[in-house]
């Protein structure tokens, strides 16, 4: 009985959420009806438009599928053989899951920064130059590496030790190095999957300031566990919930809107409870 009621409630939530009307240009039009890992329904009814030049924050409790949604945006989920979904993800109107689309090319335009800083075990310079060399970059490599490191707010700290291993840096520096590596190839969109969860507060602050600078040039989608982080940096926020009514744990979009509205005047009870810290 109560299960049915919950489903009905969440369906209305989903329809209301999809009512969110983006103000600016939409870079990625993501509409995931159902996402499965094998037989497990991981996410349903989540339509998340990513707006150009803004930071879109994804918040929600653990297991709500926010990372799954993020990783569908540049086909990182393709690496999991049992992944499949219904719906569409369109990048500037092109279906990125189209039959003729090469996921490798998609990822060059839609870059990613991961939860754990993951520099390659090579020098700082080579880490940043990696993507450029991959694409047979023909310009001045030194200049380009410097520019990427400057944009990632890391240049001043590493300019005298570019030959040192990327792994010799501190956690926060490593994460900024990964950001430099991701932006060196001039992607259009930057997906960030909880980029600060392994960092201390000072490093977090630096990365957040960096995000605000990055959105001048790039579109950013940010998964975060930290609601304060969403209020500090995100322009738009999507709140995901978990539906445990049907025996599984299925994530879905509860509500999406301007960050201020989500935190100060949420439409959904669930959102209000979550942002008030009543559950996590």
């Amino acid at each position, binding site marked *: 009985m109560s299960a049915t009621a919950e489903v009905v409630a969440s369906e209305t939530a989903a329809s209301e959420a999809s009512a969110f009307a983006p103000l600016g240009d939409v870079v990625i039009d993501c509409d995931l009806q159902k996402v499965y890992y094998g037989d497990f329904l991981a996410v349903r009814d989540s339509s998340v438009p990513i707006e150009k030049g803004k930071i879109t924050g994804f918040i929600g409790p653990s297991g709500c599928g926010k990372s799954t949604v993020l990783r569908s945006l*540049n086909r*990182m989920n393709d*690496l999991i053989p049992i992944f499949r979904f219904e719906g569409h993800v369109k990048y500037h109107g092109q279906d990125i899951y189209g039959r003729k689309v090469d996921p*490798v*090319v998609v*990822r*060059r335009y839609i*870059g*990613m920064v*991961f939860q*754990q800083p*993951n*520099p*390659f*075990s*090579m*020098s700082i310079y080579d880490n940043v130059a*990696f*993507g450029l060399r*991959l*694409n047979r970059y023909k310009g001045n490599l030194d200049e380009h590496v410097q520019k990427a490191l400057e944009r990632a707010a890391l240049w001043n700290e590493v300019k005298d030790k570019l030959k*040192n*291993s*990327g*792994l010799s840096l501190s956690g926060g520096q490593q994460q900024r190095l*990964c950001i430099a*590596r*991701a932006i060196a*190839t001039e992607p259009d969109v930057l997906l960030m999957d909880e980029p600060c969860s392994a960092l201390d507060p000072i490093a977090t602050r630096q990365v957040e300031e960096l995000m605000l600078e990055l959105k001048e040039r790039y579109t950013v989608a940010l998964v975060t566990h930290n609601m304060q982080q969403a209020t500090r940096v995100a322009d738009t926020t999507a709140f995901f919930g978990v539906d445990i009514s049907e025996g599984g744990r299925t994530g879905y979009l509860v509500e999406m809107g301007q960050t201020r509205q989500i935190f100060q005047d949420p439409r959904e009870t669930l959102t209000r409870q979550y942002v008030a810290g009543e559950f996590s």
Partner: protein
Amino acid sequence: MSRLDQISAAVLEEARMSMPRLERQPFERRAMKSGILTGLTWMVAILGSIPLFSVIYMLAIKGGARLDLEALTALPPAGFETGGGFGNAIVGTLVMVGIGGITSIPIGILAAVYLAVLGPYSKLAGISRFVAKTLTGFPSILAGVFTYAILVINFGYSALAGGVSLAVLMLPTIVLAAEEAMKQVPQRMTDAAFGIGCTRTQVIWKVVLPTGLPGILTGVMLAVAGAAGESAPLLFTALFSNYYLSGLTEPTASLSILIYNFSAMPFENQIQLAWAASLVLVLIVLVFNILARLFGRPKV
């Protein structure tokens, strides 16, 4: 002593008694157990290294005495001859291990790429892995018999046949060690590479292989060291020769067969040479190990 002093002494004593005792208590039950067990592991470690060090010591003393330029370069002596050496056997061993390595290392590493990255859960991978594991326990003489049956019967004893039989023995070790090494490459590294727009080939070539390199080289060196010391498969394939290698299709000398032959002879000269050859064999393996450690270190 005044009454006040007595009281304060009593108070102090009481305070002292109620304080927790922080000194080390070596005869307390737990501490004693810990001490005994620590001592035991030390003893066993020393005991375990006694055979190891005595072998090296004996080799150094007995083999070192006869180790000179002549031993390293001259041909093996006949029955009552003095002097002589085993230059041809050193060359033969290096050449045959080289042939074995050239055939088995690329095949082994490519197979490991498939097992670790491309199709780790496929049926083919399951079967290959099982076969490789079985083959690591394969008696080495069977590798010799196998090569004898497919090569030697048709083409005669040769360095090539010797190399192939060593390759058969090296292959499973290389496959399993390289697979393990590549599996140790953290997923976040491969994620990073895919995320930046690498193709699968680029991920393997630029991230998985370089990151797994130390482990892969360790496996390769283990296989090389094992092969260098093998004698049984070479008996059936390369046989022996008293002369320097003149072609890859000729019977070929090797250190291990020379040691086997000479150590059973009733001549002091040959027995001394067998010791010296053993020392050289150990040194060759040692050099390979050191090289592996040098090259296997992560570059940065």
